[in-house]
C-alpha cells in the first residue's frame, strides 16, 4: 500500500506543501513526494531552505 501523503510547512512564512497536490505553479506535479524535492529546494514564497520545513497535520 502506498505511503499516505504528507504535508510540510515553512517555518518562516507558513507556506504549505501538500504532497497530494504538489505545486504545479512551481513545476511540482501532484503526488510529488517531499523526499523527491532536492535538498537545494527553497520555499517559493520566502526562500527558506527545505531543511527549515516542518511536517504538519492539517
Amino acid at each position, binding site marked *: 500500500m502506498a505511503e499516505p501523503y504528507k504535508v510540510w*510547512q515553512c517555518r*518562516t*512564512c*507558513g507556506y504549505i506543501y501538500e504532497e497530494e497536490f504538489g505545486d504545479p*505553479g512551481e513545476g511540482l506535479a501532484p503526488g510529488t513526494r517531499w523526499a523527491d524535492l532536492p535538498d537545494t529546494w527553497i520555499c517559493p*514564497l520566502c*526562500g527558506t531552505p527545505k531543511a527549515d520545513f516542518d511536517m504538519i497535520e*492539517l
Partner: protein
Amino acid sequence: MTIPKEVAETIVDPQAYADGKRVDEAFSWLRKEAPLDQAHVEGFDPFWVVTRHADILEVERQNDLFHNGDRSATLTTIEADRKVREMMGGSPHLVRSLVQMDNPDHMNYRRLTQGSFLPQNLRSLEARIREIARGFIDHMAAQGDHCDFARDVAFLYPLHVVMEVIGVPESDEPRMLKLTQELFGASDPELNRSGAVLDVDAGVDSIQSVVMDFMTYFNAITEDRRANPRNDLASVIANGKINGEPLGHLEAMSYYIIAATAGHDTTSSTTAGALWALAANPDQFAKVKANPALIPGLVEESIRWVTPVKHFMRTATADAELAGKKIAKGDWMMLSYPSGNRDEAVFKDPFKFDIERTPNKHVAFGYGAHVCLGQHLARMEMRILWEELFARLESVELDGEPRNMVANFVCGPKSVPIRFKMH
C-alpha cells in the same frame, strides 16, 4: 553610471508615486541603465537603489549581512533622522516593530504571533470574514449604481477584519482608520493631521503625535487584556513573553501599531487598485466574472500591480559585493518593490494587468525572514471579497479619475469612483 539628479529626486518624491507614471518611468530607466547604483539627493544620506527583482531577493535572503535596524528602515531625510534620534535617545526608529528588528529579537518577536497567521489557523476565520465581506457588498449595493470603491468598501473591509483579529471594538474603527491614514499619508495634505504640505520638522512632529495617540490607545488595551485575556491578538501581545519576560513597552506598542496600520492599509490599497484595474480592463473583468477559478490569480496580480509597500531600507553590516558593485559596511540601501515587480527580466509585459499571469513571483510581500507576516490573511480576505462580489456584480466602469495617495512608503489609491450594476 551615476543616477541622474532628476531620476534620484523622482524616486524619493511622494508626488511621483501618486502620479504613478513618473515613478514607473524612473524605475524603468534605472533597471536598464543603472540597476544598482547610489542616489544622491539633497537632504538625504546617499543610498543604493536596488531595482532588480533578483537583487532584491539576494539582499532580503541575507538577513545577517543586510540589517533592518541599524539605520532607519524607511527612507528619511538627514534632518528627520536627526530629530528622531534626538527624541529616541539615539535610535533611528520612532517605533520598534518586526520591521525595525534583526535577529535574535526579530525571530523571537515574530514567533509570538506567527501561529495566528498560519494558513491552517486562518481557516477558522473564513466563515466570519465571508459574513463581513457580504455586509460590505450589501453596503455597496445600497449606494445605488455608483460609489467610491476605495472609501466605501476597500478602506473599510480589511480594517474591520483586522480590528476583529486584534480585538479592537467596532466603535473604534473610524479612529484606527484616521490614525493609519495620518501616519502613512503624512505627505498628503488630504490625509495628514494638519491638512497642509508639511516641512521636515512638522512632518516628524505629525508622525510622532500619531504614534503617541496609537500608544495611548493600545496602553489601555494592554491593561485590559492583562486583566481580562481574550481570544484575540491583543491578548497575545499583552501577555506574551520573550525569553521569559513580558515584551518591552516600545516593542509591544509597536507590535499593535504595525498590526493596526499595515495590517489593513496594504490590503485596502490592493483591493481598491484591483477594482480600478478591472474597471479599466473590461476583458480581465469578463474573464474572472465568467470563471471564479481565476480569482486567486486576480489576487496575486493585483498585489503585484499595486505593490502597496514601496520600499524598505537595509543597512550593510559588512563590506559586500552585489551585482558586481562594492557595497561598504554601513551603506544604506533602498529595496524598491514596485521596480522589482515591473522587472522585464522576470515579468513578461510587466505594465500589463494580467490575471492569468503565471508564474507571478512578485516581491510585494518581501522575501526571506522579513516576508509579510499577514500575507496569507491578506490573500484570504481578497479572495473571499471577490468571490462574494463577482457573484453579484454585473458590470463596472470608472466614473471619474481615480487618485493615489501622495506618499513614498506605504500607499495606493485613495479614491476609485465607479459606476456599476449589481443584483
